[in-house]
């Protein structure tokens, strides 16, 4: 059973239209190491997109408990269920998700 709803808002740098297509097709959401962070993490807002473009998604992976009512993270090693990905020599955290493209 999928957990509650999360979303990422469209923006040119970290959530462009092209990425949403990949996320829907792959059923995966990836995240880099946050600035000054200690490891890669997927970052998202909690809840559904409201009158905004981006992606809505659900996942079976519990977010890290250090989130807030508004935002969540899934850390590569600190959050159970998160998978490792590597692309062009860069490490990523990855969660499996059912993604709805709200930024066509």
């Amino acid at each position: 059973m999928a957990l509650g709803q999360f979303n990422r808002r469209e923006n040119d740098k970290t959530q462009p239209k092209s990425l949403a297509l990949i996320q829907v097709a792959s059923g995966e959401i990836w995240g880099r190491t946050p600035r000054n962070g200690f490891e890669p993490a997927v970052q998202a807002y909690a809840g559904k997109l409201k009158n905004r473009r981006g992606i809505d998604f659900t996942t079976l992976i519990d977010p890290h408990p250090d989130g807030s009512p508004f935002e969540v993270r899934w850390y590569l090693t600190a959050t159970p269920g998160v998978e490792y990905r590597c692309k062009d020599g860069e490490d990523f955290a990855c969660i499996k998700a059912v993604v709805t493209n709200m930024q066509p």
Partner: protein
Amino acid sequence: MAKVKLSKYEPDYDITPQAIFWRALKYFTTMIREGEDGLDEFQAASFTIGNDIRFDLRTYAGHPEFTVTLYLPNDVKDKEEISRVIKIVIKEMVIPKNAIAWQRGEPFTYGDLKRPRGDRLREPEARILALKIAAQQPNRTASTQFIKREVPKYTELSEVDRRRSPSRGNEALWQQIVGNVISHQETPAGPFKKGYATRTLNGLSVTEKGMAYLNSMGFLASFTPLAE
């Protein structure tokens, strides 16, 4: 002496959200920077209190309007320490209790945070808000009318705020509250008796003492004493 100091520098540490307030970021400070990270674009201000407390106030583009999240460094993990710091921030920035939407340790549901229906602007908060608004104007002076026009940019007016004033039928309750700040000159806790402002023909003017007070809660980056 300034207790809450605005930091010129962006944090060189990762952050974790620890509390949320029902107010716009401009309510807390005039020095707001734009940024972006792996989550989204955001507006932020960084602060220190003493030698051991560092925190950010941020509103991300996907956050609800008129909310601000308090972030502490990732390495602040002890629950008692987090509570201690949140308490200090609330006290030193003079954040009213009804503005606290959530803080670490309180249960929550993702994506669900509702402002209490009875929340409204009260006079103690309106006093500080009037000072904050006037402090940013030329000669640190603003009319009551101007202050009233600006207040809704700092705090989201609730249903209770918008009700008709029982004593002034042509005004909403919140407008009467703001008007009272200026007209109740003899109130011991008011800005005039405290020396934070002087009365003008149609409003108030913030004094040096008032500016220092606002500075102490991190609202102003700095201020230059007006010429005599």
